[in-house]
């Protein structure tokens, strides 16, 4: 009986040893691959700096170079942006930025109803690790408004608008009417509106308040907040990232 116990004990130790060995081999391989990847990425950057004029002038080289960078896990926006930062040839960078903006608007629309705070949008764009490492690559408000101007040819669907004190990117086709704008202006300051707030401050009739709010709620721009014993509130989603 005790022999058997010893054997199982041995087996257990052995398995454990194998396991540790296996884990360390895997993590070592992983580390090596990661280092290699970083070396390649750095080499690509060095190559870019050395041959920047050729890359920029020769369309074919540029395309191939971009493809290689993207294959090595560098975001295409970052590639385009780092290739054009020193020249006036900004169109590729801008196009990539447009794509990124559309992508982010699209993926956040269900939460914010198509109205995103400019600062939130910029934060999402600038989270790319390469952008964080190289401050020259960081995008600014001007870049966004330039890109949005460029997108005007596609219609007014993406538009920079001011609500309250903040700039927002509106990415839905509907325009906001005056009442809705007043509501959003208030919500930008307080975080929310309620029917009594609108009645007291704008002197609107109850029906007018309800119609305007309903429209914003049914577009997903305002979030409904029902709480027992309190008046219903309607919140603007830019408040999510506010530090309360």
């Amino acid at each position: 009986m005790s022999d058997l116990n010893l054997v199982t004990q041995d087996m257990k130790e052995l398995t454990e040893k194998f396991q540790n060995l296996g884990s360390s081999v895997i993590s070592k391989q992983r580390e090596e691959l990661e280092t290699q990847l970083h070396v390649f990425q750095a080499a690509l950057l060095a190559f870019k700096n050395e041959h920047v004029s050729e890359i920029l002038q020769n369309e074919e080289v540029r395309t191939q170079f971009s493809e290689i960078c993207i294959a090595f896990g560098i975001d295409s926006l970052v590639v385009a942006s780092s290739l054009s930062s020193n020249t006036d040839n900004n169109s590729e960078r801008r196009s990539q930025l447009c794509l990124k903006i559309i992508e982010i608007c699209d993926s956040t629309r269900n939460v914010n109803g198509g109205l995103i705070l400019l600062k939130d949008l910029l934060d999402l764009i600038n989270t790319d690790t390469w952008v964080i490492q190289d401050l020259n690559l960081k995008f600014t408000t001007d870049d966004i408004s330039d890109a949005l101007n460029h997108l005007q040819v596609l219609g007014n669907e993406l538009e920079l608008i001011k609500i309250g004190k903040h700039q927002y990117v509106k990415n839905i086709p509907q325009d906001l009417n005056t009442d809705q704008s007043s509501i959003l202006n208030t919500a930008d300051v307080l975080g929310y509106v309620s029917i009594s707030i609108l009645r007291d401050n704008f002197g609107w009739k109850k029906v007018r308040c309800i119609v305007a709010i309903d429209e914003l709620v049914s577009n997903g721009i305002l979030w409904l907040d029902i709480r027992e014993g309190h008046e219903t509130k309607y919140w603007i989603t830019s408040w999510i990232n506010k530090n309360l």
Partner: protein
Amino acid sequence: MEFKFPKIHDFPPFYTKQPHEGTYKAQIEQWINIILKYCEFKHIWKLELNESNGNYQEIFNNKKIERKINDNLLQDIINEMIKLEYCKYINKGDFKNILIYWKNINEWSLKLIEWINKSGQNGSILTVYEIQNNWPNEEFYGIDDEIIYKVLEKLEKDKKVACIRENNEIVGIKV
């Protein structure tokens, strides 16, 4: 260490069922994400959906903003989680106690196979008891019977492992 809730957890209307369909979908997704991450972080397999329960309090009753989740909303979230195979009721007809998988069965099977390959267990025999109790540093440590059975059945179906049964119950696997 405290679990760090995402910012939307402090957004007051997050606790009310949203009328806009797209918003509602996003809301449910966010809730599911929070519940799974929370339970994984705290290593909770069984969650009691009862207001007096401490975990319930922490997830669904936000004292900072004085909001408590709407019951219908919670029900919808649980239904969606069951549909996506992230949880199930522990006892039929008892809607207060759920078994949380953290990952769905598919994700668990991938995880387990990855671990088997990584730790050099290929070709060996493992008992269910060992899988549950022998590796305190692995995510599946203490995994509930029901979940591990489902995972192993799936792996058997995919021909990744062979199950060893005793009285129709899985007791071990050969990998």
